[in-house]
Structure formats: C-alpha cells, structure tokens
C-alpha cells in the first residue's frame, strides 16, 4: 500500500530508501576491502519502516537509534559522505571518528546519542520526552530499537515511567526476526520472548500498541502518523511494532551482498541467486515500494531509474569523500572527554 502522500513526497521516500540500500551495499564492499574494522550492522530490508516512519516526525523532534542506525540517519537526511566518513573512522565523520558504526549520531537532526547496548536508548528516550514535556516544547521523541531490546529489563522499566508520566514518546520496535532462525540471524521471538505477540508487553503497561507489516510503506506511514498525532495530543507513549523478514545477506555475523540492488529487480529477478530469490521477490521492501509506485502510475520506471542514478552518484561521491578524509590527529583521542 502506498502512503497517502503527494507524488513528490512519494518519490522522495523512494529516493531515501534507495539511498540507504546503495549506501549499505557500498559499505559492505568497503568492509570486504578492509577499509574499516569492527563489527557492523546494516539496515537492508527495513527501509520501508525507517523512511516512512521518520517522515512523520517534525524537524525538532528527538530520535534515538541503535547499532543498526545507518538507515535511520539517512532516512532523516544525514549526509552520506559524513556518515560514511564516520564509519571509516575519519576526521570528517559526524562524530570526528570517535563514534563509528555503533554510535553515529547527528544532534542537529535530533539524534542526540546512539547506543549499541541493546535497549540502552530506551531509558534515555524517556528523558528527552520528559524534558520536552517539562518545557512544553511540543517535541516528541522517537525511540527506534529492535525486537531483542524487549528482552532487556530496561524496556519494561522505561515503559512504566513513560506510561505513568504520560511522556511524549514513540516506541518503534523493528522486529526483523520474523521467521528468524535463532539469535545470530535475528531473534526468533518464539524462542526468546515469552511475551508474544510482542505488543503484549507495552500493553501490560497500558501503552497502546500496534503491529504492522514493516515492508508495507503505506501501512507503516499510517500507523506511525496516527501514533504521532496521539502523542502530540498528549495521550502519552505509543508503541508500534513493524515486522520484516531478515535480509539473507545478514544471516551470518558479517553481511554479504547476494546481488547488488537495482530497481529493475522489481520485475526481473534473473540476476538473483536462487537461494535468496524468495526474499527479493516477497520481502524486499524497496522492490515492493517501487512496484507499487509504478503500478499505481505515480512514476514511470524511467523516472525511478533517474532517481537511482542520482543516488548511485551520491554514494560514489560519498565514498570518495570518506576515503579521502584523513584519520583524526592522534591527540584528539585525548580531547573531548569533558565539555
């Protein structure tokens, strides 16, 4: 289903989704080339959650994200080149190379702090929401985390505070564990979470909670915009779970690209290895969205092709920029511990 938005807006959503995908695929290549070390996580397969969801927020709202943050930052308008520079540990990174993939944040966009501790952001999100409420600023806080975060006690503890104090916070739980086969390839909820459906947990704390197909941009947009409205009306915290099927490229601990994405895969999967064909046919949220755009006569294939071309260029330039950016001066390691 397409979000109920103008043509321009829909094209913009499409552009952002493609930007995330091409960014991440490039990132995997760079990692394979040994351009950065450390564990990292990609957002591929969840683009139709992050992009429409974040489009429902206002420019002053706060956001918190996790180890799987790249897609969220890009969806909100972060510059690919500075994001990439950060992930490569370079001076021009948003965090001056100190954060890296786990911790990229852009405070100017409302991302104050990105925690790679599972559920680490859930208490914090209550705090920015508390502050906004105290200041009557009208800002809301979007707290973006995975299904695994509900297994940490930080989640229910924070739900309690948010519910009691009617804090203006949106909990967006991206459940990428649907059909997952164990922790390493996405937590299979049924084996790690007894509170199932997951919405039972926030509901116990009287937080309205809804489930939605995370590969359906229209459904995500509808659910999130409704939740955001309720929060702005002062109804307190809201919880939305979006369900996606884990991208097969993320099945091992280190991502691999089974096939480089191009929008034409939406109609022609001949280039896709058989083992992963089903995912690209049934579950790839970008291909679904592209088909909907074209079949709904919002845009032509040619138009999408142009969008994708520009995205490709942007990513190429970003990579050039990031690779050219120097490593930070060694002494900077000792600076910036305290304000």
């Amino acid at each position: 289903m397409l979000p109920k938005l103008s043509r321009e807006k829909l094209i913009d959503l499409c552009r952002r989704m493609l930007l995330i995908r091409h960014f991440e695929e490039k990132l995997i290549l760079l990692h394979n080339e040994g351009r950065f070390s450390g564990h990292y996580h990609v957002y591929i397969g969840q683009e139709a959650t992050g992009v429409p969801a974040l489009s429902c927020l206002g420019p002053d709202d706060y956001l918190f994200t996790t180890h799987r943050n790249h897609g969220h930052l890009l969806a909100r308008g972060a510059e690919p080149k500075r994001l990439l520079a950060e992930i490569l540990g370079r001076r021009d990174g948003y965090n001056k190379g100190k954060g890296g993939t786990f911790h990229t944040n852009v405070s100017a966009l409302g991302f104050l702090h990105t925690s790679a501790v599972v559920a680490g952001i859930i208490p914090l999100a209550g705090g920015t929401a508390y502050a906004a409420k105290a200041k009557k600023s009208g800002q809301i806080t979007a707290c973006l985390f995975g299904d695994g975060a509900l297994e940490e006690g930080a989640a229910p503890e924070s739900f309690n505070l948010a519910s009691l104090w009617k804090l203006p916070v949106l909990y967006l739980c991206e459940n990428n564990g649907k059909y997952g086969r164990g922790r390493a390839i996405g937590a299979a909820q049924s084996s790690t979470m007894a509170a199932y459906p997951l919405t039972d947990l926030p509901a116990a704390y009287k937080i309205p909670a809804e489930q939605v197909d995370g590969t359906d941009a229209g459904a995500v947009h509808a659910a999130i915009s409704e939740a955001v409205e309720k929060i702005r009306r002062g109804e307190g915290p809201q919880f939305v779970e979006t369900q996606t099927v884990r991208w097969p490229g993320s099945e091992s601990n280190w991502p691999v690209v089974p096939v480089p994405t191009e929008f034409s895969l939406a109609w022609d999967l001949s280039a896709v290895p058989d083992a992963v064909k089903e995912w690209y046919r049934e579950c790839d949220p970008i291909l679904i969205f592209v088909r909907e755009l074209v079949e709904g006569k919002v845009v032509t294939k040619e138009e999408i092709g142009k969008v994708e071309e520009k995205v490709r260029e942007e990513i190429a330039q970003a990579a050039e920029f990031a690779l050219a950016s120097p490593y930070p001066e060694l002494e900077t390691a000792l600076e910036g511990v305290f304000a």
Partner: protein
Amino acid sequence: MREIAYYEAKLEALREILAADERVHLITDTLTGFLGLSPHRARFREIAERYPERVISPPISELAFCGLGIGAAMAGLRPVVDVVTASFIFEAWPQVVNEAANAFYMSGGQTRAPVVFHVLHGLRGGGAAQHSHSPQAMLWNCPGLEIALPSSPRDVKGLLKTAVRTDNPTVFVDHGSLFEVRGPVPEGDEAIPFGVADIKRKGKDVTVIATSYMVQRSLSVADRLAQEGIDVEVVDPRTLVPLDFTTLIASVEKTRRVVIVDECRQSCGVAAELAARIAEAGFDKLKAPIRRVTTLDVPVPFSRPLEDFISPSEGRITEAIRTVLR
C-alpha cells in the same frame, strides 16, 4: 560567618539551585529526598511541595530513572537524580558508565549530558553487605564522569552548586554520617570549583589525604595527635575527577610522609590510585612507604563490632600515621 549543620547546607543548596535555574529537576523519593534515613528527612518535603512539577518521585527503577535523567540532561534540563543508597547505582550501572560517561566523547562533542547522580555511600551502621558500598573507585575507573565528595557544610553546598552547573555528568558522592557536622557556610551563592583540593588542616609532619567522611575522622585524629606534638596536614581532594594533584603533591613534598584514608575497599580503590600516582611522582621525596587506610577487602558484615573492625577507623588512621613517622 554563620555556622550551620551539613544537612542544612545541603538543603539550602537544593533550595537555591531550584530557585535560580528552572532547568533543574529533582528525581527523588520525595519522602526521603537527598537525606536518606536521616531524622531530618522530613525537611525536604517543604522543597518538594514548593516545586511539585520539578520534584518527582519515581518507581523503584534505578536503571530507567537514571537513564531518564541522562536523556533529560541531553535535552537541556539539569536533572539531579537521587539514587539514595550508593549500592543502588549498580542497578543503573549500564546507564551511568556506558551511556552518560561516553555521550560527550563518542558523539564527537555533539551531546552534553549534564546530569547529577546523588548517592549516599559507605558504612552506615548495620547496612551489611548490600547497602554499604563506596562506588567512587569503580566510577573513577570509568572516564567521562566527574566525581565530587564533599566533607563539610561549606563543601556540600558549594560543590552541589557546581555539580549542577558543569556541563558534564557528575556523581555526587555524599555520606550520611556527615549530616550532623556543623561548620561555617557563607550566605549567598558560593560555588566551589571542581578540581581544587582543600587543605582542611595545615601541618608539617605528615600528609593525610582523606575523602568524604574520612576527612572528619582524620581531623579528629589530627587533633588528638597534636597533643603529642605530631603536626598532621589533612588534605581533601574534594573532587576525584577532576583531580587537583598539584595541591596533593605539594603537601607530600613538604611533609614527605603520606597516609591515604578512604572508605572504598582497598583493592583498586581510590587510595590505590592516589598512592600509585604519589609513589611515582614523589619517588625521591618520600621518607616512608605510603600507607593506605581503607575499608578492608571483605563484604561488609552486619554486626556492629565487625563493621567497625573493617572500617577505616580512627584507631587504624592513628596507627598508620605513627607507622609512617617511624
């Protein structure tokens, strides 16, 4: 200058801070606010009642409410979070040591988290193993947190004001046994800067570096030893992070004999760090090995005689001073 009790100075600081800066919010059990089980705790109620929107009582959820304080600080408030018994900061450990401490650094300077965590540390008489911790050594091992330990009415007021004003997360490590101590406190706003040690007693024979309640204990030992002609200098760092090592080492170079008194357990405690630094910097100045007087390395026993036995008591402080003078 007027003399008031420590707990009064502390309440006065809270009152003035709330009046001066509407960004300050207190997260605390409003029935015991910042005074724990002290008989004076009801005095806090008047403050809580004057600011019902800025003094809030949380559920028993240290992890969530400390994290909430950090997040609120990131968004521009100046939350002071009362964890009450210091042992309970362990419940919030991941938020304190792995979120608050890292936020400014790992964001590359984008995000400040000027939250204050308030704890009451140490042996308290029957607190037993689970309620008697002094977490400041563990916290000092975790860069990114400022750590203040007041030891006098003047310091508690002045340091609390600074804690709320600095742009960094601060752990304010207080001690219930200080509450009845009386001393001079200037009227009006006199913040004490962090990173400035205070010579609580001048002396020339031996330097006693003491923190928190141990400053008071060391002072009474010093008074007693003065009658024997032993002239003890008592130096109080007041903040561990930042640390005023200059004042400490200047005293050491003068007396050349050092005792460190601190209520953390010995191994990897605050006294260990101070001893290691002084032993290195003062290597050819010291006339005797540095002695540490700390809580002994055992869980805290409940029974009072046992608790007193493992504590850095006046007896053990006195003995350590005599040893380094030998």
